[in-house]
């Protein structure tokens, strides 16, 4: 057990890692994906091609792409690191991300696929009033995408210092700009088809890389989980050392904080707009179901792998070393790769981590662009009177604008603590999007007023509570360090804002005087369950 440990120590003390090798592997990934994106772009003519990849992906392909979209750098590096340092609590965190998929599978995916075209707003405005509902849905979609995007771009800066050994502000800014430009190119040229392929390739590399490392770690420990846990306990720095085997190290101080987070995770996933949009890239509801099934297996297996990798990093690298590394807890997985396979495996895992950021930002960008062009421009501003290629033209321009905003934002928030943005994105998705989706699919008496109240109310509650929380005020890690006191005690708003979103949807509906068109409601119900009249695949 001493030799890999020494190798890591030397690596950290001296060269840290080999930036040239890392950049070459990353460059190879970019070259391969660019080639795929350009090939995929040949048939990008209509809106269905551009936003929904011509609805031509199979369930398994889309399942890989969903996993690629979902397993962000935060979930790969963050969860591995959390398990390596805090043990059980990191594992506990990962379970919410998995169980959430059952909401998507049982209640949302197929019915959404059957009733919508490109965006979440298509489903919500099916039987409710177009303009107010689309506007609200587009605003919550853009808010979620923006929070998530900013978190990813900020993460890119941090990763750079860890993986490429670039510590200067200017160097990090350049890399953030490179990530932004690459993303614009992918989405602009490849549309949804190109973006999907980038996600498939990335998911394959990420899960494959994690699998190899897991088998490696298990082999070192005689394929015994117990031996692995014992070696993790042996290097543990917590008190007592075996505290990493049970809950409490990370969330023990304020359990309600974790409960609020758990609620947001489990209800947020099925309301994430970039996940919802993926259901439109397959030809039928049955394929949408298969995609979620594949995604559940891939994501579930991946989190099981991270459990081994996390404890493996604790055992082979040591929590002390991980905490003191340049990237803090995020460096657990890369350092484990270095300990196992030397600079080459480190380079590979680093490149995968970068690819992860690229794929996730590309998925978010096309979702935001589709929502702006399809919902706000084509249906609210132009009331549907747009020439066939006009919408896609606007979408492409939006991509460039979002890309530039993401670069500026990503550079602006560097070295700021923006980890809360991902939690906020999930909270908004769960408070503003999920209630309206569930109500409009399952509750006949849901009205336009209910939808609008629920979306704006859920969005506002989530943001206001975050701004009043310890994330912004009073603690060492707050945005305003050690200033003022938090009015709302929890870091996550979910426990209040999600029930509020559901409540407002109900309240708005029961106080509406006029009912919505019953024929539209009947049509929506028949279509959602049978798939009659659902958008077909594009035949080229």
């Amino acid at each position, binding site marked *: 057990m001493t030799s890999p440990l020494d190798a890591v120590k030397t690596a950290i003390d001296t060269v840290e890692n080999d930036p040239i090798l890392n950049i070459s592997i990353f460059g190879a990934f970019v070259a391969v994906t660019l080639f795929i994106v350009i090939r995929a772009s040949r048939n990008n003519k209509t809106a269905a091609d551009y936003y929904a990849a011509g609805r031509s992906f199979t369930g398994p392909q889309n399942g890989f792409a969903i996993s690629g979209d979902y397993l962000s750098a935060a979930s790969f590096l963050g969860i591995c690191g959390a398990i390596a340092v805090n043990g*059980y609590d990191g*594992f*506990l965190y990962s*379970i*919410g991300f*998995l*169980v959430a*998929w*059952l*909401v998507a*599978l*049982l*209640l949302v995916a*197929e019915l959404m696929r059957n009733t919508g075209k490109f965006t979440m707003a298509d489903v919500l405005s099916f039987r409710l009033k177009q303009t107010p509902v689309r506007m609200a849905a587009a605003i919550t979609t853009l808010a979620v995408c923006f929070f998530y995007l900013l978190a990813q771009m900020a993460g890119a800066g941090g990763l750079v210092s860890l993986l490429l050994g670039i510590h200067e502000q200017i160097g990090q800014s350049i890399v953030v700009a490179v990530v932004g430009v690459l993303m614009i190119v992918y989405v602009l040229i490849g549309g949804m088809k190109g973006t999907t392929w980038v996600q498939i390739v990335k998911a394959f590399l990420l899960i494959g890389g994690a699998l190899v490392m897991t088998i490696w770690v298990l082999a070192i420990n005689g394929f015994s*989980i*117990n031996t692995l*846990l*014992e070696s993790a*306990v042996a290097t543990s720095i917590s008190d007592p050392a*075996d*505290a990493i*085997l*049970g*809950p*409490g190290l990370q*969330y*023990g101080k304020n*359990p*309600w904080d*974790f*409960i609020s987070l*758990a609620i947001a995770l*489990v209800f947020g996933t099925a309301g994430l707009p970039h996940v919802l949009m993926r259901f439109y890239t397959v030809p039928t509801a*049955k394929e949408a*179901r298969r995609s*979620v*099934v594949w995604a*559940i*297996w891939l994501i*579930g297996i991946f*989190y*099981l792998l991270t459990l081994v990798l996390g404890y493996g990093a604790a055992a082979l690298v040591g929590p002390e070393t991980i905490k003191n590394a340049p990237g803090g807890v995020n460096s657990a997985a890369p350092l484990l790769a270095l300990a196992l396979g030397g600079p080459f495996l480190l380079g590979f895992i680093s490149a995968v981590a970068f690819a992860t950021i690229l794929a996730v930002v590309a998925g978010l960008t096309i979702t935001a662009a589709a929502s702006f062009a399809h919902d706000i421009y084509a249906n609210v501003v132009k009331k549907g009177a747009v020439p066939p290629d006009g919408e896609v033209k606007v979408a492409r321009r939006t991509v460039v604008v979002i890309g530039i905003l993401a670069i500026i934002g990503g550079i602006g928030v560097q070295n700021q603590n923006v980890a809360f943005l991902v939690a906020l994105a999930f909270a908004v998705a769960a408070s503003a999007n999920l209630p309206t989706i569930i109500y409009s699919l*399952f509750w006949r008496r849901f009205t336009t007023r209910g939808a609008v109240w629920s979306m704006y109310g859920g969005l506002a509650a989530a943001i206001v509570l975050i701004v009043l929380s310890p994330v912004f005020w009073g603690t060492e890690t707050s945005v305003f360090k050690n200033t003022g006191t938090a009015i709302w005690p929890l870091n996550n708003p979910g426990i209040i804002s999600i029930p509020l979103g559901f409540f407002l949807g109900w309240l708005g509906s029961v106080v509406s005087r006029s009912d919505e068109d*019953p*024929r539209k409601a*009947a*049509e929506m*119900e*028949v279509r959602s*369950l*049978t*798939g*009659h*009249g659902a958008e077909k695949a594009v035949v080229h």
Partner: protein
Amino acid sequence: MSNSPSTAPPGGIDYVAVEESPRFVELKTKHRSFVWPLTVVFLVWYFVYVLLSSFATDFMATRVSGDITVGLLLGLGQFVTTFGITMWYVWYANHRLDPIAAEIRDDLERQEGGA
């Protein structure tokens, strides 16, 4: 979309009638009576697990064998139930829901084609 007489609303299909047809009512009942109870079950099981991890930390840290704790086993249990529910739903949808949905869909397509 064609202009249509009062019996057949836009689209040529009287969706209200379809919605009230016994076949569709059966499909809807079968769908909802499967997904909702199951949703309640997995949510309750998940939040029981979360609450145990938050408030019964000593219980969760109890060792079952070697370094394997109750918490670890319950956590792995969440994976098992998630995979299990997924497979169960797919089987149910393929065998119990899809045939009825396909039947109604074919019927509607014939109506539209013949209208």
